């Protein structure tokens, strides 16, 4: 029996298992479909709009009303009027409004007499995105109002229009967002969350597939199929799962970059390669975990703990350098970290091979992990000398 014959037998056996137990299909295809739909639709257009901003207008003058109208007209804000600060505060604490803007009594009068009134605003920073966007929105509005008043004052002083711009705004900044020009939060999140879920699904499903042989005592049968060749047994399984997960991953990437048109500076083929390697490396981690702990339930618990933490440790939300020093190295334990680095190089910068081949090598290095535990897994399959449950 050649190696390929053996692999063929394992694959046929595995497909029979899939047909008997829907959980493999549900755990991979159904879960990934749900995640893809969720992360692509949940954030809608990717930029929030109409965030509720509470305004306590103690002045009630035409200037303050005008301020409120302008704030309401911004894309980000939607003004809700409150009669008193304490009412607004209760809703701020309850998370029902993102911020409170207090326009003081005598706002209009003080502006006219150059007494510099103070607009106060309170932001709920516990709702991160809403809070910080509302903060930015109000700040812009206050600056614009101040600018409008200055313009009026300068005009009265007889400053010609041609000099006005230089006086009102002597310095300006031109902001370029590399890799996500529209600040699409949806694209930012989906680009990494969906591969993150793929890593999780690969690890959990493959651990279960290998662990179920131990749990149901079918490891012997598996080895008998291939003439006691653990390498063929594992390779066969992994080959089939690689096909399944790579197809899922590629479909997702085609959806992201071809259908949703998320920004991608490099070539699609490079991302597809990254995806294939992410699948292979995650599978290697899964084999390594079940090989180290050949008890289905324990291995699954470890896999779950590992992959859920991976979403936090890979550094696409909170960058790795903001982690405590002792934890930074842990990011290297995750294939997803290398995938992220690859995405940054290919997707954001469109760099050449020279910039990102290191991460390809790192992902390939993960593939050596299973060789460390093959012997142990083979013995576990043969002797069934571990706890079943």
């Amino acid at each position, binding site marked *: 029996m050649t190696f390929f014959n053996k692999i063929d037998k394992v694959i046929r056996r595995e497909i029979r298992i899939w047909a008997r137990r829907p959980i493999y299909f549900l755990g991979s295809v159904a879960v990934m479909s749900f995640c893809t739909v969720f992360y692509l639709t949940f954030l809608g257009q990717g930029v929030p709009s109409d965030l*509720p901003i509470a305004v306590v207008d103690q002045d009630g003058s035409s200037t303050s009303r005008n301020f409120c109208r302008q704030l309401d007209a911004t894309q980000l804000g939607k003004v809700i009027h409150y009669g008193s600060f304490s009412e607004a505060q209760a809703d701020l604490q*309850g998370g029902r409004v993102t911020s409170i803007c207090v326009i003081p009594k005598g706002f209009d009068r003080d502006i006219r007499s150059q007494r510099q009134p103070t607009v106060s605003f309170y932001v709920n920073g*516990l*709702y991160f995105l809403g809070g910080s966007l509302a903060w930015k929105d109000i700040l812009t509005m206050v600056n614009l109002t101040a600018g409008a008043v200055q313009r009026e004052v300068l005009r009265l002083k007889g400053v010609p229009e041609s000099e006005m711009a230089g006086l009102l705004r*002597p310095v300006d900044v031109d902001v370029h967002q590399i*890799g996500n020009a529209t600040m699409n939060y949806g694209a930012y999140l989906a680009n990494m969350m969906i591969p993150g879920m793929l890593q999780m699904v690969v690890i959990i499903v493959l651990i279960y597939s290998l662990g179920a042989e131990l749990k149901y005592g079918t490891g012997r049968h598996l080895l008998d199929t291939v003439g006691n060749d653990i390498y063929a047994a594992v390779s066969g399984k992994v080959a089939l799962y690689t096909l399944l997960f790579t197809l899922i991953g590629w479909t997702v990437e085609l959806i992201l970059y071809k259908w949703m048109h998320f920004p991608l500076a490099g070539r699609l083929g490079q991302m597809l390669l990254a995806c294939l390697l992410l699948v292979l490396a995650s599978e290697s981690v899964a084999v390594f975990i079940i090989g180290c702990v050949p008890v289905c339930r324990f291995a699954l618990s470890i896999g779950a703990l590992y992959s859920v933490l991976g979403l936090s440790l890979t550094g*696409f939300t909170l960058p790795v350098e903001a982690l405590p020093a002792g934890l930074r190295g842990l990011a290297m334990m995750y294939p997803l970290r290398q995938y992220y680095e690859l995405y940054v190089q290919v997707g954001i910068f469109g760099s050449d091979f020279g910039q990102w081949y290191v991460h390809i090598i790192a992902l390939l290095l993960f593939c050596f992990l299973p060789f460390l535990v093959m012997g142990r897994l083979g013995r576990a399959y043969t002797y069934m000398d571990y706890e079943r449950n």
Partner: protein
Amino acid sequence: MKGISETYIGRWMGDVLRIFNLELRNILNDGGVMIIFVVAGFLYPILYNFVYKNGILEETPIAVVDDAACSDSRRMIREMDATREMDIAWRCTDIEEAKTLLQQRKVNGIVYFPSDFGDRLAAKETATFSIYADMSSFLYYKNLLMGSEFVMLNEINRIKIERLSLEGLTDQEADASVHTVRYEDVNPYNRAFSYSIFLISAILMLIIQQVMFYGMGMSVGTMREENRSFATLPDILTGKGVGRVIIGRGAVYWLIFMVIGIYVCCIVPSMFGFPQRGRFQDILLLLALFVTVCIFFSMTWTTLVTRRESAFLLFLFMSPVCVFLTGFSWPTTAFPGFWKLFSYLFPSTFGCQAFINLNTAGAPLQVVAPQIRALCIQGVVYYILACAAVYVENFVYRKSRFRPVPPA
């Protein structure tokens, strides 16, 4: 006179107690479930606190290309370096060099002063400089933007006063016309927009729900594998007493999770010096309600679990989804309609919001009334569903038990 054990209430209590004992023994004897409860329940909050301990990204490395080379641009660069957000790590001769550094991830942003920057300032026109942010993490962008805006606003005011003085205004007049409106921004609950404070607040309650769900799922799956049912009614009841099963089993989880819950919501935050602005009794009340709802929620959904491990395979991906559904990052007002309805399925949606508001924003109990109300409704609905599940399960189980074994 009848003895207490013969009255309806007496029998009811006796049944509940028997089921309670049975379930408690089941859980304590199941190493796997205990590991989930103890390790995940006690370790996860600590792990997350460690990961997000700093929570604030400071001193993002920036490359500067100063083609203007005037005193104004040099001063601005110095001021940027002095901000908390930015660290001028490299000074480059041209933009290409800076781009290379950005690609090599040695810097996370570029500040570029064009050669006409100084000339434009001298000519009293608007001088523009550029920033290029690496969007691989939004926090880099935020730091670059905030740092340079602070410096820019400061510069603007300085230059304005200078120019207005040239127009013949006194210092005081110039200041008054520059600062026509002053502002004061207050971010009372999360002063520095710390990533950890907002994330951990949301995650703590979620840990309780998820740990309970996976644990109960494992326990139910095990019983199914061993050909028992979680819904076995006491034999003497002849098919009645569904409520007793729910209450009896639930009481076990309630006791375990009140302990874990108090640890997660009260002890962990104080261990990590996390804000605790709520009143203890309010938090305890919320916790008691939340744990109850979570029990009925888990009982309902674990009915679908058929094997010991399937809870992991089928529902692990829900943990990050639930995090987003709490609305602490993407604002609830921006949820698409369907996902808003979907989020009502989970106790964590309301539990986390209420906890953030009570504990971290220090709100009084009446402020979280909407969340408490929602939790109560969820509790009632899930109680009914859990009862229905037990009833159906029991019906199916009885039928299958009395069916003759088919020949192999």
